[in-house]
Structures are given as structure tokens and as C-alpha cells.
């Protein structure tokens, strides 16, 4: 556990002593802020209209602002996550620090777990920025917090899946750009898989759509925590990290 924390701490330092963390925080703050502004202005206009027309529509902050906002965030994450995960192993390989890690009394899975945890914390820090906007909703409205919490849990789980893939891809190359590009391609693919239900209602397209990480996020954005989605995400993360560990082992044999 101590090794995992040591490596996790090193990763966190790595992010926050380089511009990458601040860049990611800024990108997400701007995009989320824009989405938030758009969603809340539409909501404000709609509620004004509903008040003036005399017929009161049912207005719900959770459904009308937060759900689409979280949906948008989950797509933005597809773009940010490769930037978090690409350096994890590629940089160690390029710098030659891989030799330090692999000749220290640390197990391979501890290295993987430490790095993944560091990346997750970085990701969580990015999500934290968006809570500033959400705080305004609590200041001026009264949304219920449970669906929001569920939505953020969903984002974390979905982010975890993509990070696990990115971590794996990062072990396969010395070049951060290659790792980032490949991760981005895979993330994109996992997103567009969800469109396959539009192609037809056959069993195959259903299965394909089920594999998309985004289909499993929808219930979370509506505030529903479904065990089958949680299990899907957790299985995905474990599988990704398992592959990463095996890939790390294979470095020794191939090097």
C-alpha cells in the first residue's frame, strides 16, 4: 500500500508541476462554464415564459440543467482523458526511469495501481472544478443533490474505464503523442459504438451498443445508479489494469 501511495503521490506531483494539469483544468472549466451558461439561460427563459403564460410547466433543475450538463461533460472527457493517461508509462520509458521502478522492490501491479490512482485523482480534480458552477444552482435554486452525486459517480466510473485503457496504451510506447493519439482513437470508437442502435434493432447492434462506455453513463446522468452499469464499469477498469500489468511484465521479456 505504501508503494502504491508513493507512486500515486509522484504522479500527482508530475501533473501539478507541469503545465498539463493547469491546461486540463482550464479547458474543462471553460467548456463546462459555457455549457452551464447555455443550459441555465435556456432554463431561465423557459421558466420566465412559463410564468408569463400563466400555465405553469413542471420545471426541474436536475432534469433540465444537470442531466444535459453531465451528458456533455462525459463527451468532453473523451478528449481530456488521453491527455491525462498518455504520459503515465510512455514518459517513464523515454526518461529511462522505468529501470528505477522495475529494479526497485515494488510489484508490477503496485506500479500500475499507483499510477492509475494518481491519474484518477487528477481526473477527480478536473471534475471538482465543475462543482463551482453547480454551487450556483444550489445558491439560487433547490436542486436535489442525490442525482448530482450519482451523475458524478458515473463520470468517475466512466473516466476510470477510459483511463484504464489509456494506461494500457501508454505501456506500449515510448512516445507520449502516440499513446495520446491511440487512446483518443479508442475513446472515440467507444463513444460512436453507442450510435449503432440507430442502425437497426438487431441483436448484434444491441450488443455493440452495450459495449460503448457512454450507453452506461445515461442512467447515471438521470440520477439512476444501476448495479449492472456499475459492474460493467468496474469490470472494464479491472480488465484494463490487468492488461496493463501483463503488458508491463512483457516489457521485461521483450526489452
Amino acid at each position: 500500500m505504501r508503494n502504491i501511495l508513493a507512486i500515486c503521490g509522484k504522479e500527482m506531483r508530475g501533473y501539478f508541476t507541469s503545465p498539463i494539469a493547469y491546461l486540463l483544468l482550464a479547458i474543462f472549466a471553460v467548456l463546462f462554464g459555457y455549457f452551464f451558461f447555455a443550459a441555465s439561460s435556456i432554463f431561465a427563459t423557459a421558466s420566465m415564459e412559463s410564468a408569463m403564460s400563466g400555465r405553469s410547466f413542471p420545471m426541474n433543475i436536475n432534469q433540465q440543467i444537470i442531466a444535459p450538463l453531465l451528458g456533455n461533460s462525459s463527451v468532453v472527457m473523451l478528449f481530456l482523458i488521453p491527455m491525462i493517461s498518455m504520459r503515465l508509462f510512455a514518459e517513464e520509458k523515454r526518461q529511462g526511469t522505468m529501470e528505477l521502478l522495475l529494479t526497485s522492490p515494488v510489484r508490477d501491479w503496485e506500479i500500475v495501481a499507483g499510477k492509475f490512482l494518481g491519474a484518477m485523482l487528477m481526473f477527480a480534480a478536473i471534475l471538482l472544478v465543475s462543482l463551482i458552477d453547480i454551487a450556483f444552482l444550489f445558491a439560487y435554486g433547490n436542486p436535489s443533490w442525490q442525482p448530482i452525486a450519482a451523475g458524478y459517480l458515473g463520470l468517475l466510473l466512466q473516466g476510470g474505464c477510459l483511463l484504464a485503457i489509456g494506461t494500457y496504451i501508454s505501456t506500449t510506447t515510448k512516445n507520449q503523442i502516440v499513446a495520446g493519439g491511440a487512446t483518443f482513437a479508442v475513446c472515440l470508437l467507444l463513444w460512436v459504438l453507442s450510435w449503432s442502435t440507430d442502425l437497426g434493432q438487431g441483436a448484434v447492434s444491441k450488443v455493440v451498443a452495450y459495449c460503448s462506455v457512454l450507453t452506461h453513463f445515461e442512467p447515471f446522468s438521470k440520477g439512476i445508479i444501476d448495479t449492472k452499469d456499475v459492474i460493467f464499469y468496474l469490470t472494464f477498469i479491472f480488465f484494463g489494469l490487468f492488461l496493463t500489468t501483463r503488458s508491463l511484465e512483457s516489457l521485461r521479456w521483450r526489452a
Partner: protein
Amino acid sequence: MIQVENLTKRYARTVAVDRISFAVAKGEIVGFLGRNGAGKTTTMRMLTCFLPPTEGVANVAGFDVVENPMEVKKRIGYLPESPPLYPEMEVGEYLTFVGKIKGIPSNELARRVDEAAGRCALGDVKKKLISKLSKGYRQRVGLAQAVIHNPDVLILDEPTSGLDPQQISETRELIASLAGDHTILLSTHILAEVEHTCSNVIIIDRGHLVASGTVRELLQRMRGSEAIAVEIRYDGLEAADARQRIEQVPGVSRAVVKQSEPGRVLLEVESLEGANVRADLARAVVHAGWNLETLHAAAASLEDVFLELTAAEKSHPAASIEPPITTAAATPEVIQ
């Protein structure tokens, strides 16, 4: 401390290390000598559990590198060819991180970091970013990283490569100062380094072990016995006369004129085994009425040994190598 038997590393197309065997005893500083690409780094990587051997057995600090890598890793300090540093960290932070993953208990960590920094003369740069350090300082940080957990065995891959002469001599002194507590295996292709720092030598060439033994033994084996340089000054001195006179000294087997200019002759004198001819040489020169300018042992440089061994390897691949020399430690094999 280190026992290696028939260690082999094969890649798809090449054999990087071919059945080498040697042993290093506790407290020795052993130079691991070979040209670039001879298989030094591969061997060291196998000893540090970074690469698994294809065949053979390596035992480091009492544990097998394949069976028990965790135990081996706890007991070794390894400085790869380029020091494994994180440029965005400060020196102190970096050493603390390394200390943690090397398993130093939290309550000792700060003390050990200070100790390692002190030993490697890093006290004044502890707060500096590694990316701002000069090459020499980086190398020292690399060494501090290797010694921080007080390992039984230190494995240093070309610790002085890329340094300036001042830094090289500092690094050598540093390594020599670490010698007492640790068993050190250091690789190099600079021969002078081995002569300066090491007690024993292992020479490998194209994956084969060509010789091993103490530095002295190897040098003596080259010459049969030691050679002596004699410099004589005398106006009107003829080189041939000087040579003749010197060869008459009892115990001298051969004298070779190395340099000759009017009034000055430099000879290299080889003596029969076991004979100490220096006093007789001096007397002979003085009796002849010449001025004895210098007289000293012209030790064969390790360079000669090295070139001879690796060249022999090339021309007679089958039976060129003489019987092995025994080190104090064990009976290392000379493998062909």
C-alpha cells in the same frame, strides 16, 4: 555476493550474453570491462532483475534473480547508464521518493535521505530541480539513489560516462569511498578507470567472458613479469651501446629501445620471472658512467591486456584463451 553461472541472454536474432560465469566476493570492487555492445549492460540488467536470463543462474546477495526477485531488489542499488531521474522533482524530493519505493521505513526516511545526499556531496543542491543540474551532479544524484537504502550490492553501469575529467575523478573517489560497505560491480569501457578503482576485473567481448582476475594478475600474465623503463642521459650515448650494456645485466631477458635521441635513450627492460633487477640496472648504468635519469616499473596498461585478449578472440576463435586465473573469491571460468 554475486554468483553467475552460464548466464545467457538470447534475442530473436542475436546472442547478447553467451554462457558467462563469474563470482564476486563480498567487499570487492569489480570492473566489468568490454567494448560497446559487448553485453555489459545486458548482464547488469539480468543481475538487477530488469531482464530475465534466457538460461543460466544468477545469484545476487544470496537470492536467485528469477526465483526471488523481490529479495534481490531489496539488496541491490542500481545506477543505469543514464541516471533514472525525474527532471521535474527537486533532489531531496526525488531521494525521498526513491527511499519510499526502496522500502525505507518512514521514521528513518529523512535521515537516510540526508545521509545519501551527504555521501554524494549533494547537500547544497537538495532544493534544486533535477532538470537544472549539471551532468556531474545528475550522476551523483543517480549514485545517491543507488546507495540510499544501503544495499549489499551496488551495480553501476558506466558511472563516469559523459563527465568531464574533474567530475570523473570526483566520481571515482566517490565510488572508492563507497567500497567499504558495499560490493561493487561497475561496468566501463574506459580501461584507466578499472586500473584506478577496481581490485578485480572481468573482461567480456561479444557476449563471451574472456578473462577475469585481479588487475595485477591480469597485467602480470600479460608480461610474464613486470617491465621496467630506464631512461639514460649521456652526451654522445649510442642507443645500441646502451641496449647491449643493459642486456648484460643478470636477470634481464630483453631490452627494447623505446625512444632514442642524441644524448638520451629510453629503454624498456623485461626481466626473467621472479628476478628483481632494478638495483642491478641502476648500478650498471652508473658504472658505465652514464646518468640514470629515471627508472620505474612500466606496468603494462590494462589496455594492452584488453586489446590482446579481444584480438586473440577474433583471430583464433577456438583455442586462444589460456587457463583461467583464479580470484580470491571463487574459481571463475574463462569461457570460450
